[in-house]
């Protein structure tokens, strides 16, 4: 999904969040999460990292009853912001959480995002001199995708 960088789009997201943020209906809550996720991504692309993190945290603060793409997306994009801020330790922690949330039924786009997250974790371990941990990250990634020959 393309995210609009138009500042007016924020108002639309804010309106959805304001009107339906307290709803107990699962369908509406999911729409609120999507609005928060899109708002976070828009804030991220315009360099407003702290506000973007708040938006992603708001998505993660109320987990849904099903494994929702918006929560995985929030984890993924939060990692991206944390990485850009040099908060590598938090990235690694979030990466583990994200990858645990992914299973073979997760849509391809999000599985790939999870794989990329693990590559990021591996890079962090490599930079810290932990080559054994780095290999373990690769092994996890490859086994999670059910790849033969490992």
């Amino acid at each position, binding site marked *: 999904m393309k995210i609009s960088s138009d500042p007016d789009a924020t108002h639309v997201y804010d309106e959805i969040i304001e009107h339906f943020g307290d709803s107990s209906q699962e369908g509406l809550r999911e729409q609120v999460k999507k609005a928060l996720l899109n708002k976070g991504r828009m804030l991220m692309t315009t360099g407003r990292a702290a506000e973007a993190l708040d938006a992603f945290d708001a998505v993660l603060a109320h987990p849904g009853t099903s494994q929702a793409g918006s929560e995985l997306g929030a984890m*993924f994009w939060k990692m991206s912001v944390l990485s*850009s801020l040099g908060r590598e330790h938090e990235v690694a922690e979030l990466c583990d959480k994200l990858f645990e949330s992914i299973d073979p039924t997760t849509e391809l786009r999000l599985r790939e995002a999870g794989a*990329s*997250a693990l*590559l*990021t974790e591996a890079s962090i371990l490599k930079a810290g001199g932990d080559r054994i941990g780095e290999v373990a990250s690769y092994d996890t990634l490859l086994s999670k995708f059910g790849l033969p020959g490992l």
Partner: protein
Amino acid sequence: MTRFFQNSACLDSDRELVVLVIATQERRVEALTSLGRHVEALLACDDIIARCNGKGGPPDPSEHVAWALSAKAFTFAREERSEDAAKVCSEIIGRFGPSSPTPLLERAGRALVGRAAHFCDLGRYEEALSDCDTFLATYQSSAEPWISETVALALLTKGLSLLEIERSTEATDVLNKILTCFGGETEPPISDYVASARDLLRDTESE
């Protein structure tokens, strides 16, 4: 690192997933090699080659195959399995050559000089000389950045091989050529090759 996030944002097909898996295996090979886990590294290289040769492989299989074969040759060399390393170099040379695009051309050129070094280790000096001469005749005029260090290595391997078969005068000429062409280099690996050439010349003069 942010690159991974950017990349993943546009991943949308099984083929791109294969690309991601191959990239993972390549990184894994590097890490395993650094840990001395050579058997696992070799298996991972074979896995990359199999994925590239299979249906639904990456869009640029040749580059990944060339990378995996080069990594295999390097790993065999680290294990002092010169015969196996030479065989893999032969495979690279057979698949890619002087008419290949730059990344593959480099793999083929380096494999040629690598095979010469492995032949030298195996005492097959005539074959080593042949590979060095082929490389120098084919690649020396190229302006690619990787050429200089490979030329220096080819000259060193040629000089060493000539010494081993007691063609000392020719060996001296070749080793002196290294000093003439690269004597001012201060960066490894070329500076290491220059130092080796100096040592060999000193030993030859003292005999």
